[in-house]
């Protein structure tokens, strides 16, 4: 293909990727935008004013969603990092099975587990609470965390750690000055995906949060199902903001997820 043709194909692709976001931008400042008007009759800040007011609950919801996604990521890291180390560094009987089990929540639809999960959390007194929602989010998040960390540790040479230890470093010192720097790039990718997977959860939060835990997607749907396109659009744009910010910081590293997920199960 000639470069000009490539650019043309690229433009078409770019258009396709950006198009669904454009009406959101227009709607968020529209007032009275009905067929067949191409552009809003009146530009108004009313949707944004409402969305950013304390009464609307959007900002509180934003904080809740951020808190849940951050806590889920940290928890997943605590659980997934050791598992990734075990799976990446060691070969043992049943390894394939463990990998499959860890992968299962990424392939099994949330609706399959949500009813039973709600029952468990209810009995633990965690339904309708933020810790309950964080635990629930851990299920779809853990596969991404573990598999990326497995891939990271598969490329990691534990001999460096042994050297550090033989030179008198404590396990903590070894981890901080040898292990951590080596796994840092992969760890950042894993955290990014953990955050985004939790950030986008709808059904699990709806079922387990019992309405008490109002994350942004729930609030967004509440306004979308009430036909307030202007407010819906404003919330939708607020909702994609953190993803954009994270991407701007880590843009080049994102492809790591692909490598990790398609990593064959027996290295």
């Amino acid at each position, binding site marked *: 293909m000639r470069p000009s043709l*490539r*650019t043309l194909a*690229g*433009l078409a*692709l770019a258009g396709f*990727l950006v198009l669904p*976001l454009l*009406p959101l931008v227009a709607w968020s400042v529209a007032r009275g935008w009905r*067929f*067949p*008007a*191409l552009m809003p009759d009146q530009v108004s800040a009313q949707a944004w004013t409402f969305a950013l007011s304390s009464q609307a609950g959007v900002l509180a919801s934003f904080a809740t969603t951020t808190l849940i996604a951050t806590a889920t990521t940290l928890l997943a890291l605590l*659980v997934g990092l*050791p*598992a990734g180390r*075990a*799976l990446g560094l*060691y070969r*043992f009987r049943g390894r*394939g099975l*463990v990998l499959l089990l*860890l992968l*299962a929540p*990424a*392939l*099994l*639809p949330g*609706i*399959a*587990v*949500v009813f*039973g999960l709600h*029952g*468990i959390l209810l009995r633990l007194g965690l339904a309708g609470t933020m810790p309950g929602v964080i*635990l629930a989010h851990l299920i779809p998040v*853990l596969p991404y965390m573990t598999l990326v960390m497995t891939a990271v540790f*598969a490329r990691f040479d534990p001999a460096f750690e042994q050297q550090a230890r033989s030179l008198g470093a404590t396990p903590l010192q070894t981890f901080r000055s040898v292990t951590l720097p080596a796994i840092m790039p992969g760890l950042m990718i894993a955290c990014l995906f953990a955050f*985004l997977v939790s950030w*986008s959860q709808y059904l699990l939060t709806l079922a387990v949060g019992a309405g008490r835990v109002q994350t942004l*997607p729930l609030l967004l*749907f509440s306004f*979308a199902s009430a036909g307030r396109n202007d407010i819906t*659009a404003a919330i*939708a744009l607020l*909702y*994609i903001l953190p*993803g*954009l910010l994270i*991407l701007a910081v880590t*843009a080049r590293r*994102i*492809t*790591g*997820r*692909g*490598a990790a*997920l*398609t*990593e*064959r199960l027996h290295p």
Partner: protein
Amino acid sequence: MTDRTRLVLLLAPALLVLGGLFLTGLGLTLLRSFRYVPALGMTEPDLSAYTAILTAPGFLKSLVLSLWIASVSTLIAAVLALATALLLRQTFPGRAVISFLVQLNLTIPHIVGAIGILYLLSQSGSFARLAHAAGLIATPAEFPVLTQDPYAIGIILLYVWKELPFITLILLANMQTLGEDHESVARSLGATRWQAVRHVLLPLLMPALLAASALVFAFAFGAYEVPLVLGAHAPKVLPVLAWQASTDSDLTTRPEAMAMAVVIALIGFALLALYARLVGKDSPRAP
């Protein structure tokens, strides 16, 4: 500490979370689908919930719709993603921007995309207004039905929009790992550029493409919020039908909701087995 103990300690937290929440959750759903709830004195499991859903015409229609949506959107997304990956492998002006957009798309939650597609494609949406301005249609009714439609076109478009970048990125990562060597060899042996891609690169990429497609299929099959925004009144996709049955004011439909969840889980497990076979085979490994 022996390696064995260390292994157990390292794996224990993850297995505990998955066993305690994921597997127990599945198990509880399974028990309730057999109408086995000892706490309520129901100790004689039976299959009547399954009989009920399998004989209801709505369930099979929903199953077919869900499979249709998942298959078509996965197929289209996979083909387009392959083309996109091959495109992005080459240099051309504007490539950096496209790469950024592909990555950006990955961070956008599905529900936001679904609402965007709705505002874009509904019969009074942006495209319909453009068509009106161009004099192609006079009323919204003349614009093609693309949302809340019987063929789920809007839903499929959303999944293609959202999953094309996902598969593309996986393919690009794999291509990076593969390097140019295999193709160079083929080219030096006299293969054309296209032959090299067709006979050398594609077979090498196939496992990754299939594995990524399995993930996409699983998501498109099991998603709830997208069809809620873009779907028609009937038939409903399976997850929506199951959720609706679980919140029905009629208590008797609850075991049916559980049974539907189990059917969905079984299809998920079939995919998992397929996935395991695909990535378990000789796929090239990251260095």
